[in-house]
């Protein structure tokens, strides 16, 4: 790959580093840890001159919100190697991701693959610029792991589509501008009756209701569609051929979730070295070992597992550097990362003892309260974006080639 050698490699890295230094708003000192701190984009950010919006717009102009996308659609037009350099420099400098976006992570890649030229020109630039925030309308009350059991109806009314039904676990639907949505266009078939549509959340008949989780947060919603009309052009791909798009998008989602776990946190986790935090709460014995030997063994297993996972993510990346799409390792990494992140959260609250049981109030430090909420939030790691059970099925069948029952 030419872009790795000579002026395209180290020189490009210096360019990127300089640009970041010059353009990052000094007000955004810390990397975003919580949802409100992240730069999610959307109509709410358009025209705003708070530092987050400024940072997002500057990065978008430079092509850094979607570095690998074609320039034609507002992307950076960068090679995989250059994209990696941009990501590395943003992480190394402690800068916030310029745009946290389901549009960039999930929808964009499948639009590039499956959408018409008109659809791409309509939606991709707005994603890149963070003008439209997207949410995902996949799961339904009766269609969780068995996603293809979805029942939300989409009827062809001649000049428009008519949508009726209910989605659940639509992340941030209450804050999103548009929704990419799986709908049923044929009730006689299962997988072959699914289509992929795009819905403006301001359309009449769309209603969202946040779901309160055991952690106390409400990142997900129930979303109701009652006689919602959408233009004919909002269907991506062919009618009844949405299942392939849906699966492809899920691969991008899992890859993205796995990537998030790799750093040691994952949705719900708190940062910091588990061994050191445990030492603060449990103390060391006279040989310098954690005073709770039983806990120490379990912490060490978890730390080792996490490091082996990071090594695996790095190895998989090195092995498939040329390929830009998700690969067979995605399910393995997603499964392992979820288990490890949950175990880590459990060990964190165990290490904190009675201080790891607090819900609120001044008797608990912010770190302690965050650990408890994070522990509860982490239970979702093995459910959202494909349950661990589904991931194990995928590994067994698609990676290992084990047969279906007759």
């Amino acid at each position: 790959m030419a872009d790795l050698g000579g002026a395209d490699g180290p020189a490009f890295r210096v360019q990127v580093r300089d640009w970041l230094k010059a353009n990052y708003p000094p007000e955004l000192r810390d990397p975003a840890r919580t949802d409100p701190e992240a730069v999610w984009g959307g109509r709410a950010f358009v025209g705003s001159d708070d530092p987050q919006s400024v940072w997002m717009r500057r990065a978008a102009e430079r092509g850094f919100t979607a570095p690998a996308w074609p320039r034609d659609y507002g992307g950076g037009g960068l090679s995989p190697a250059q994209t990696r350099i941009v990501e590395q420099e943003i992480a190394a400098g402690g800068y916030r991701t310029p745009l946290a976006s389901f549009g960039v992570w999930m929808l964009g890649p499948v639009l590039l693959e499956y959408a018409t030229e008109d659809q791409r020109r309509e939606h991709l630039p707005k994603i890149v610029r963070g003008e439209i925030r997207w949410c995902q309308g996949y799961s339904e009350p009766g269609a969780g792991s068995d996603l293809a059991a979805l029942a939300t109806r989409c009827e062809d009314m001649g000049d428009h589509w008519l949508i009726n039904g209910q989605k659940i676990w639509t992340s941030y639907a209450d804050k999103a501008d548009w929704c990419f949505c799986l709908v049923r266009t044929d009730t006689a078939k299962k997988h072959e009756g699914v289509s992929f549509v795009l819905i403006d959340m301001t359309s009449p008949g769309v209603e969202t209701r946040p779901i309160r989780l055991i952690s106390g947060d409400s990142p997900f919603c129930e979303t109701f569609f009652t006689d919602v009309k959408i233009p004919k052009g909002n269907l991506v791909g062919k009618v009844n051929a949405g299942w392939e798009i849906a699966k492809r998008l899920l691969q991008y989602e899992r890859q993205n979730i796995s990537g998030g776990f790799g750093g040691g946190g994952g949705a719900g986790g708190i940062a910091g070295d588990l061994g050191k935090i445990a030492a603060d709460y449990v103390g060391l014995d006279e040989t310098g070992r954690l005073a709770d030997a039983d806990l120490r063994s379990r912490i060490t297993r978890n730390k080792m597992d996490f490091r082996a996972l990071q090594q695996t993510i790095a190895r998989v990346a090195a092995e498939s550097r040329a390929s830009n799409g998700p690969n067979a390792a995605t399910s393995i990494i997603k499964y392992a990362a979820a288990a490890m992140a949950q175990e880590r959260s459990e060990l964190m609250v165990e290490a904190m003892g009675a201080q790891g049981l607090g819900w609120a109030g001044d008797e608990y430090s912010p770190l302690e309260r965050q650990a408890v909420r994070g522990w509860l939030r982490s239970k979702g790691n093995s459910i959202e974006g494909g349950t661990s059970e589904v991931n194990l099925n995928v590994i067994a069948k698609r990676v290992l080639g084990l047969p279906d029952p007759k």
Partner: protein
Amino acid sequence: MAVLSEEQSMLRDAAKAWTQEKSPVRALRGLRDSRSDHGYDTEAWNEMAQMGWAGVIVPEAYGGSEFGFLSMGLILEELGRTLTASPLLASGLAAASALTLGGSEAQKAEWLPKIADGSTIATLAIDDGPHHAPERTALAATASGDGYRLNGRKTFVLEGMAADLLVVSARGPKGIGLFLVRADAAGVNRTRLQLADSRGAANVTFEETPAQALAGGAGLLDQVLDRARAGVAAEMLGSASQAFETTLDYLKVRVQFGQPIGAFQALQHRAAKMFTDLELSRSAVEAALAALDVDSPEAPELVSLAKAKMGDTFHLVSNEMVQMHGGIGMTDAHEAGFYLKRARAAEAAFGNQAYHRDRYARLQGY
């Protein structure tokens, strides 16, 4: 289930009927949402006390029924099934044990009848820091007149806000022992804890607080703690059993891929393993309670076994309850989260699994 006497069967049936009717899980939810300082429903407690539950291990001479620990365990198990918040464990089991085993005639006569009829709430205050380490308490008891003065701090005191009487472990002139402190005594300062499991507890500080000693020193402390631990384990047995049964029901009705998800072999095997663990844990809990009833020298080992095994099982079952319910198990509207949060608090109470594995090994000499 242990083979029960007729008396025990009646007690169990009464507890089951009452908790199912008067104290389902939504009672705890209501308590949580009311943000009461108290930690339990006082009306419900009055009903429990009227049924004599607070006096089950109290000697008849002091107004109790002296039915014993296995009987108390049956009630706690039923309370655990519906996650009923009450001071029964702290007051009617733990503090009552302290007074029964270590109280002078006068102390027993003063407190036990009121504990047995539920009019006084008593509790234990044991740990200074975030981890259970009763042998390492630094709270100081200094002799003063015919009593003592306490200075120091206790954390995670169950029902600490509601308690009228605190049984406090402290380091006195003759080593570690238990001391009686009135909650309204001088120098007592209580701060309510807002716990994840929505139960009542407090951090408590003592400053020149007057106290009376119980007899028995560190040996008494061990005995009292073992009774409290066995009680928590019995409550956990009920909670874990209910969590498992609720999950099992869901496996039979939730359909995905055209099947009840309980038809999938991987989930079947996980359910079978959980049930096996529950059966083993039940045996361990009942054996520990029975050992306390006969004051067996093996009781410390058996209690640590019960608390550790039951802790591992409730930990597993509460996690699987959420996982097997999928997204719905993650919502606050579902009961799963209440069992999950209660599991970790109960695991930590009076020593978690790691503590009791270590203790078991020490007791066995390796």
